[in-house]
């Protein structure tokens, strides 16, 4: 066979040989790179995505609605979100104490206040005689709290009607065995505005 004949055969083979198909994942990648610049592919992709998204949304809606219909511990479709109901919900079962009650206890030296806010706020001002305990540190200071509180009513407070730190602190202490901690909701603002004794300074 001459060189030229060999070349012809080779060329024929190239033409007739079945084209080897790259594996699907490579094919996809090649296709992806080849067509990436083409706006149309993305447009089509986006259109398909919108359709799929709509379908997924409908499925979740159906599931959500059906589960809502059967679950026993459901919440109403429309809830009442007044400040009072929010505060009650955010108490999570912890007892709260009214401002006047708290002040009466304080006056008789029967209240032990725990400030659940941050050190900076505490430094700027806190209820007279209050001790700074950040909820995550509650566990470490249980024995000291118990000792210092004695038979006094422990009252945790934070600032703002929606601040949950007072409740968090009460719950953390409850876990450590100090129950009957009460929460003075929005304690700092209400106490200060009522003109009751406050202090400044480091913890």
């Amino acid at each position, binding site marked *: 066979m001459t060189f030229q004949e060999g070349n012809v055969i080779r060329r024929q083979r190239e033409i007739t040989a079945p084209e080897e198909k790259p594996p699907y994942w490579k094919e996809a990648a090649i296709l992806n790179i080849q067509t990436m610049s083409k706006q149309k592919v993305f447009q089509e992709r986006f259109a*398909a995505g919108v359709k799929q*998204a*709509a379908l*997924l949304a409908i499925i979740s809606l159906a599931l959500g609605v059906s589960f809502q219909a059967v679950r026993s511990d459901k*919440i109403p479709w429309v809830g009442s979100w007044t400040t009072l109901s929010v505060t009650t919900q955010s108490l*999570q079962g912890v007892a709260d104490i009214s401002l006047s009650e708290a002040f009466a206890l304080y006056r008789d030296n029967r209240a032990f206040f725990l400030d659940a806010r941050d050190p900076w706020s505490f430094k700027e001002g806190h209820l007279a005689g209050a001790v700074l305990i950040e909820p995550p540190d509650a566990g470490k200071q249980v024995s000291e709290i118990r000792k210092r509180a004695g038979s006094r009513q422990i009252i945790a407070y934070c600032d703002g009607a929606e601040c949950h730190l007072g409740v968090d602190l009460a719950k953390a202490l409850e876990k450590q065995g100090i129950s009957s901690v009460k929460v003075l909701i929005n304690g700092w603002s209400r106490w200060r505005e009522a003109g009751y004794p406050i202090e400044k300074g480091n913890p």
Partner: protein
Amino acid sequence: MKTKIMAFCSSPVLSLAFRVILGSLFLYAGIAKIVDPMGFALSIYNYKLLPDGLINVAAILLPWLEVIIGGSLLLGIGATGGALIATALFSIFAGALTINLIRGLDIACGCFSTAASGGSINWFYLLRDLSLLLMSLQVLLFDQAFFSVTRLRKK
């Protein structure tokens, strides 16, 4: 170099990794919220963005959307659609976080848990959200449905 970076960013293998990450996160977050609708409703309320009448509706339905797109991304069933919704959700979350970070509200994120004691939002949460947003965008643009149910059925 530029093409290499481009090829990496648009790599379908990367899409698969992102799909697994996003899918698992959405499943986890969604289930945690379905378990405690009241807690999640309180989280939404605290953001002070939705009108009162829509808070519970969102608290009831949004977790299911998260679970469904989580499954969609993880299994690769309509993953482009899942990524589209994920991108939209992350954009909305980014907006909500930014608004409240600027307002300086001391609220819990309510992102992956409904616990009020989960710590207050800070810029890290926004950064995390934006990273997830980029991941979902990548999946939306370049996913080739590796190891997907759709692909396995076709084969």
